[in-house]
């Protein structure tokens, strides 16, 4: 069990965002968090990443309370790709991915770190843009680079906050293929998403959040029209397609 969350509560000021969350995550699984905007998905990721400190409850990483880790120790176990990464500064792709090695080294990147960075660049097929300034790349390419950085971090648990937002179809699929590859090597990936058809196709497990509470926690097959209706307030129809389900939004339920 890589992650265990017990009775987690989180509030921004007085507003309760997460209410009594209990979750466990096992190794080698792709777990998706879905739910409407403001349901607490990103906040939950930030709590798991120890960036936000919950008001109540315990988060355990490998059976150890997250509070008992130093920042550096935690960075070796958990990698995180935030929703919007700032890229104001000139950095090339290599340097950006190399950042993932910070927790593993001291003040300076070692030859090993550079080797791992080069390997990840090849694995993710980024060699053609390896020394381009990331500010001159498309949003899709940038997102791939940020995920590559999380991969270079060699963490067992990878948290991705809406990694496919604003991306075209090709980049969306490429990103999910990158994620699948990581899951197949035994890593646990927790993703927040809005595209339910993609979620359904790739996830091992889908957790639905509604108003800061876990509404359902099940396999992809169990995603039903009635659940989506009550969480999102939208009527949908589901179509079977190659063993997965495609979700078609029909109309808003008032």
């Amino acid at each position, binding site marked *: 069990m890589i992650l265990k969350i017990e009775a987690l509560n989180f509030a921004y000021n007085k507003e309760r965002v997460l209410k009594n969350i209990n979750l466990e995550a096992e190794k080698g699984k792709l777990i998706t968090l879905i739910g409407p905007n403001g349901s607490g998905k990103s906040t939950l990721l*930030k709590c798991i*990443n*120890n*960036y936000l400190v919950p008001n109540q409850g315990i988060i355990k990483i490998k059976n150890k309370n997250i509070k008992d880790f*130093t*920042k*550096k*120790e*935690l*960075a*070796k176990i*958990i*990698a*995180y790709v*935030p929703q919007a*990464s*700032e*890229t*104001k*500064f*000139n*950095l*090339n792709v*290599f*340097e950006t991915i190399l*950042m*993932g090695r*910070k*927790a593993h080294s001291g*003040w*300076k*990147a070692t030859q090993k770190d*550079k*080797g791992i960075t*080069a*390997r990840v*660049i*090849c694995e993710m097929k980024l*060699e053609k843009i*390896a*020394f381009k300034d990331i500010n001159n790349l498309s949003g899709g390419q940038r997102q791939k680079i940020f995920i590559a950085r999380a991969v270079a*971090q060699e963490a067992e648990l990878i*948290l991705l906050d809406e990694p496919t937002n604003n991306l075209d179809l090709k980049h969306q699929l490429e990103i999910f293929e990158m994620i699948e590859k990581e899951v197949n090597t035994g890593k646990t990936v927790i993703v927040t998403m809005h595209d339910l058809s993609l979620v359904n196709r790739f996830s091992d497990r889908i957790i639905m959040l509604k108003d800061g509470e876990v509404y359902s926690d099940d396999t992809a097959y169990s995603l039903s029209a009635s659940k989506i209706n009550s969480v999102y307030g939208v009527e949908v129809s589901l179509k079977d397609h190659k063993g997965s389900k495609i979700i078609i939004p029909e109309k808003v339920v008032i």
Partner: protein
Amino acid sequence: METNELSIEKKIIKEEKKNSNKIIFLSLGLILLIILASIYSLFVGAAELDFSDLVRVIFEGERGMIYNIIWNIRLPAILTALTAGMGLSLAGVVMQSILKNPLASPFTLGISHAAAFGAAFAIVVVDFSNFPLLSFLDGFYLPSVSAFIFSQLAVIIVLLISVKQQASRESIVLAGIALSSLFTAGTTALEFFADDLELASVIYWTFGDPGRTNWNQFFIILTVLLISLVYFIYQGWSYGILNSGDELAASLGVDSKRLRLFAMTAASILTAVIISFVGVIGFIGLVTPHIIKKIAAGNQRQLFFNSALAGGLLLIIADNLARTLFRPVVLPVGVLTAFLGAPLFIYLIVKGRQIW
């Protein structure tokens, strides 16, 4: 396929090495230029010296006026220009990085003006002559100490503004402008009440000049510079990561709060020490990081180091110009950097976001 991928990996590592070597060449080039400019500066000034004078002083042990010019006037001035330029530039590039603001520098944030006000305050208002025990303070060090205290005050205000309400970069610079005008107004008011001697001394302070330091003051600046430089080079990688936002930095194991506090403290002490001995020298800290970025930024560590070197070089050159343009009148270098820096500052504002 496997071997193919391996060779591509090797190629990438090679390319990375080549890129970083390029930056090392830039550093070496800057160091060479600094040495050349320093040697040239030894000969240039109100009194003309030539090579034989230098040989006589260094190798034949001649003592006298030329020895005095070289050892007590030129050399401390050149070395102070070098270290002050490096320090102001380092402080500028650090502030730009920490506040995520390309317009940040000791000068634009009002820290320099606060120091000038502090010096003026000490010169005009404070008078220890009636207190025999404290009268030793009334010499050269009192304006410096007062400049230091007031510049720290400005830093604290800027820090509070940037931390308290997640201020935008514009608002930090605007706060800096407000602080600058406030302290400039304060200095002007003091000038109004000053007698002739005090007035001359206040104006002297508002336009910095590395030529006014002695060896002791140079060594104080050097010590603070070296400590800061070593710290920022050591932590360069972490500061680079900080640029990508606190959230990401935390997930990569970097403690952003502590780093930011350390950086602002170190940069402001460095600035305050330099300004309190040398006087206000504007725009060096603002402009050099941008020049280096135009040439080749490299990573954060290299950017810190090369910006510092370029700042040292620029101030040596500017000081040379200031001493020779209107010979035999020696212009304070602060006047010159203001004339050169202001148009560049406007250029940066106009070009603004394209540069970043």
